[in-house]
Structures are given as C-alpha cells and as structure tokens.
C-alpha cells in the first residue's frame, strides 16, 4: 500500500503546522459548544400584563394561569400604575414593546369587567411585537389557554340570546381576543423574520472568503513582494483592494438585497431600500477588512481557509440570526456583542420589519464603522510592522 506513505507525509507536514493541529482540536469543541447551546435553549416569550380598574381583581388568576404556559415568562413592564387614560396606556405599551421590555403585552381594562357583567363577551387586548412569528405563537397560544380560566374566575355569564333549548345549560361566553401587532401583521410568515438577516450573512460570507483567498494568492505568487518594493506604501495596497472589491461587492449587494426584498410578503419603501443597501455595503466593507486581515495573519492559503469557520460559524450561531441569543450563556452573549453580524442583523431587522429609519440605526452604524476602522488600523499597523521588520 503506497497510499500509507502519502498518509504519513500528510501527518508529518501537519504536525509541524501548530495552527492546523489547534484547528483540528479546538474548532470542533467550539462548534459543538455552540450547537449544544443553540439546541438546548428553548425560545421563551416575555409577556407583560397590564390591568386597570376592577380588572386588577383578576391579576392573580390570570398571571397564575399564564405562568403555567410553557415557554412563556411574565415580566414586569415600565408602565406607571397611575396611568389610566386608555390612549396613554396604549402608547406606553407600544413604547415598552419597541424598547424590547417584552414581546407581548396582555391588556385587561375595566370595560372588560363591565361588559362581562352586562352579559357581553368583552374584549381582551393583546399587543405583540409581531416581528418574530414563533414568539407570537407562544404568546397567543398561552393567552388562549388562560382565557377559559379567566372567564371561569369572573363568574358565569349566561348568554342573553340563548334560546329555550339552552336555557338550562350553562353557556359561558368566550371573551373576544383583540390582537394588535406593533410591527407586521397576522399574515406574517416565519420566513419574513429570517429574510432580513440573509443579506448580511451572504455578503459577509462571500466577501470574507474571496478577500482572504485573493490577498493570500498575492502573497504566495510573489506579487505582494513586488508591490512592497515599488514606490507605494502598504496602505496603498489595502486601499486598492477596497476599491477593487467595492465594484463587485456593490453589484453583489444590490442583487442579494433586491432578491430578499422580492421574497418578503410585504412591500418595503424606496427610502428604506436605500438604508438597507447602505447597511449591506457597510457590512461588506467590514467583511473585506476582516478577510484581508485574516489573509495577512495566515502564512499560507491553508491557514487562510481555516479562518473561514473560525470567523463565520460563531456569527451564524451568536448573531441572533437563527437562534435567540438570550438562550445562550452570558459569556457567549458577550461574544455576540463583538461580532459585526449581530449589529448588522439588528439594523436589517429593524429597517425591514420595524420600518426603522437609517438615522435610528446610528448605534449599529457606529459599531460597524468602528469595526471597519479598527480592522483597518490593525491591518495597517501589522503591515507597517512587517515593513519595518524588513527595513
């Protein structure tokens, strides 16, 4: 078996490449940890309960019943108790949901009690953030289950319109559940929640890979050395790469964003399309810089390729792309914050699902610009250090 000599040669070569050995050992552990937490964490929806007037009497029953619902957590809201004006309460509920204090709010007003005792069905209001269909389902399902308990606790209300046929039966009228969507609508599909994060992922993934490999090729075939002995600084090489990739990346970004917007079940305004393209291009620049840096730090194409899972996979797991980041331990949530895709996803979802304006995404723009500048600085510094070592 001559093949064994080929195998032996590969082992001998890899043994000397410590980075590759570390890659084989550490990367599976890291990926398995991420998969474990991603699969372990159940999605939980946070629900706030607001009751006013006589309806407060049923707080305890309602909350007890809701708490029995799996994956539903009752959370306090930052809404003052003395706020009684219905319009002001509704405004406060919208604000609480917009700020992310909860994914849903159950609002039970005094009118409900009045209606029930007058023999009417009465309205129970539920406000849902609406952008995440799975959480909507948990909230609405939990409330539906608790409504019977609540109706029982409120006493038996006989249907006034009941005919003689049912006169002897107890007919508890169900309450009317009024659903209010802060963002989106009942027709929202699960895929609509995932589509906005597709452009940051695809753009990051492709730009990172291509820039990392192309720059590495420049080094391996010796043209980088030729550029370094020409009358140009390392910064000119980096700027040249940004300029060269920018053209194709703009094209790619327009295609990806256009395709995703076409797949959405709702239209997006032209103004928002501009903001979305801006965010996507910013993400492309971050990916480009990270790709160039990875390439600069790698000694060969093999090592450059190893950066791909190292950089891409944590972002897939920890950027709130598919799995809810709240279900991960604090350390991984901390790591999530330093991943550019986390911020790009937040901005993209905000712009597409919540009609967020470009200026409202300033924290994400600031962070991504920071990523770009810091990576650029590290790359320039590493390049200059490299050049200084040579001179």
């Amino acid at each position, binding site marked *: 078996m001559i093949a064994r000599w080929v195998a032996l040669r590969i082992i001998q070569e890899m043994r000397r490449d410590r980075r590759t050995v570390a890659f084989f050992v550490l990367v599976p552990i890291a990926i398995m940890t991420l998969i474990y937490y991603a699969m372990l964490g159940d999605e939980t929806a946070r629900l706030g309960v607001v009751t006013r007037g006589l309806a407060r009497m049923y707080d305890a029953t309602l909350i007890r019943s809701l708490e029995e619902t799996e994956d539903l957590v009752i959370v306090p809201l930052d809404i003052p108790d003395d706020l009684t004006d219905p319009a002001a309460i509704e405004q406060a509920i919208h604000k609480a949901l917009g700020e992310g204090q909860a994914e849903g709010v159950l609002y039970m007003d005094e009118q409900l009690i009045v209606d029930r005792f007058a023999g009417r069905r009465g309205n129970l209001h539920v406000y849902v953030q609406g952008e995440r269909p799975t959480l909507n389902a948990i909230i609405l399902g939990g409330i539906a289950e608790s409504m019977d308990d609540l109706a029982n606790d409120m006493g038996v209300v006989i249907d006034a319109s009941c005919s003689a046929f049912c006169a002897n039966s107890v007919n508890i009228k169900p309450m009317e559940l009024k659903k209010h969507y802060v963002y989106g609508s009942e027709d929202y599909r699960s895929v609509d929640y995932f589509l906005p994060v597709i452009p940051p992922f695809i753009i990051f993934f492709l730009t990172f890979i291509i820039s990392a490999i192309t720059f590495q090729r420049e080094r391996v*075939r010796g043209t980088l050395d030729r550029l370094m002995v020409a009358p140009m600084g390392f910064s000119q090489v980096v700027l040249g790469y940004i300029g060269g990739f920018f053209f194709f990346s703009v094209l790619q970004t327009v295609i990806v964003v256009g395709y995703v917007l076409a797949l959405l079940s709702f239209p997006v305004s032209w103004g928002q399309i501009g903001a979305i393209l801006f965010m996507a291009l910013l993400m492309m620049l971050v990916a480009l810089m990270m790709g160039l840096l990875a390439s600069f730090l790698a000694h060969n194409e093999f090592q450059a390729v190893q950066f791909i899972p190292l950089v891409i996979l944590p972002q897939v797991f920890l950027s709130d792309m598919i799995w809810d980041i709240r279900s991960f331990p604090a350390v991984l949530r901390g790591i999530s914050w330093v991943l550019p895709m986390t911020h790009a996803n937040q901005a993209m979802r905000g712009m597409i699902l919540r009609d967020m304006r470009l200026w409202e995404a300033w924290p994400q723009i600031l962070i991504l610009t920071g990523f770009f500048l810091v990576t650029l600085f590290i790359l320039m510094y590493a390049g200059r250090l490299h050049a200084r070592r040579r001179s």
Partner: protein
Amino acid sequence: MLQVDRVTKQFGKLKALDELTLAVPEGQIFGLLGPNGAGKSTLIRIITGLLPPTSGTITLLGSKDPTDMEIRRQVGYMPQDAALYPGLTIAENVRFFGRIYGVPETVISQRMEEDLELVELTHRKDSVVETLSGGMVRRTMLLTALIHRPRFLILDEPTVGVDPELRLKFWDWLAQLVQRGSSILITTHHISEAVRCAKVVFLREGKRLEEGPPRELMARYGSQDLEEAFVKATSRKGGTP
C-alpha cells in the same frame, strides 16, 4: 551604485550571509554567483528591503534606507518566482507595473512597444499570462521590471528554467540595457553563463570566495570555464563544491 558592507543574515542557527562585503559599480552587469543555498536570494531580498540584515549595512544609490520611495522608484526587481498576475495579459501586466511606478500612460505605451520588440514578444502582448510558456513568463517578468526605466536593475535567477537558446538571448538583452544606461545586479547558479558580466562574486554558504572580472578569475584558476573556476575556488578556499 550599491555597497554591501559586512552584511550578516541569520535564520535561527543558520547563517545565510556571513559578513559579506561587495561593491557594485555603475554601468555594468555584476554577477552574484553560487549554487543553490549560497545566500544569493537572501542578499537580494535584503538589498530590496524585503528582509532586514542581522548586522551590516546596505547603501543603495547613496541611501542607507532601501524603503525610501525615491530609491524604490530607481530600482527594478525581477524575483525568482513567476510574480505576475496570471489572469492578465502581458500588456496588462506591464501596464500595471508601469502605473504603480508612476509612469505616464503614453510613456508606458511607447516603452512597452520598444521592450516587447527587444524580448520578441510583440506578437503575444495580448496573450493571458497563464497561457504562456515558462520562457515567455520570464521575458514578461523582465518587461515588468524594466517599464519604469530603473537606474539599477536587480535580477534574481532570471534564466532559471529557461532553455539554452533563450538564455543566450537574455544576456544579449541585458547587454543592450547596460548600453541604455542601466546597471544590473544578477544572480545565477548557471555559473558559466555569467562570463558576460563585467565583474562577478563567487558566493558559497553566505561567504565571498572570490571577486573579479570573469576572465581574470578563469585565468587565476587556470580554467577554460567560469564554473570550473568556481569549483577550484571552492576547493582551494575550503568547503565542498
């Protein structure tokens, strides 16, 4: 033109260059000769500023800083590897290197025509580099190193992998370049071909064995061939040829 003064380069325990001193005069082809591993490419990388010396100094065109932009502008470098963009044509590669050296477009076009004619590649100027033969790639490399008309041309093993007929032509072209006013530092392990240099240095294990005009060295060692002179110099001064 170039002064190398007691340059040593150490890679861990390996001494690639050992207190090497040499001077390259203006308007000549100066040969750096030695077998593979003699330290020729290391010295070239130090001269171009791609590697720092462990000790010693390099003075190139009057400057001790090889990364000085003004110095770089006057130096042409042809590395040993096929350091070209394989997806571009010959003309596109030459134009790219001309541009990064700040040569005006019209001047590039004019020089390119002259140089393509010199290295007999005019008919292939629009061919993509990855479709070229090894010899054509070496000629294209030379073109890209010449386009900014450097005062000092550094050629690291320009004839490696080139057939004997083309090797002879290479030396003819280098002679023409000297006539045009360039000074050339060339390394080769095909020692015999360096007989056309004005002066050569025999290098072995990072040390200078001999220095002088090829004919003079051949006479000194009673050899008909420069390679034979090198072998004799090696055995006389220690080391295994």
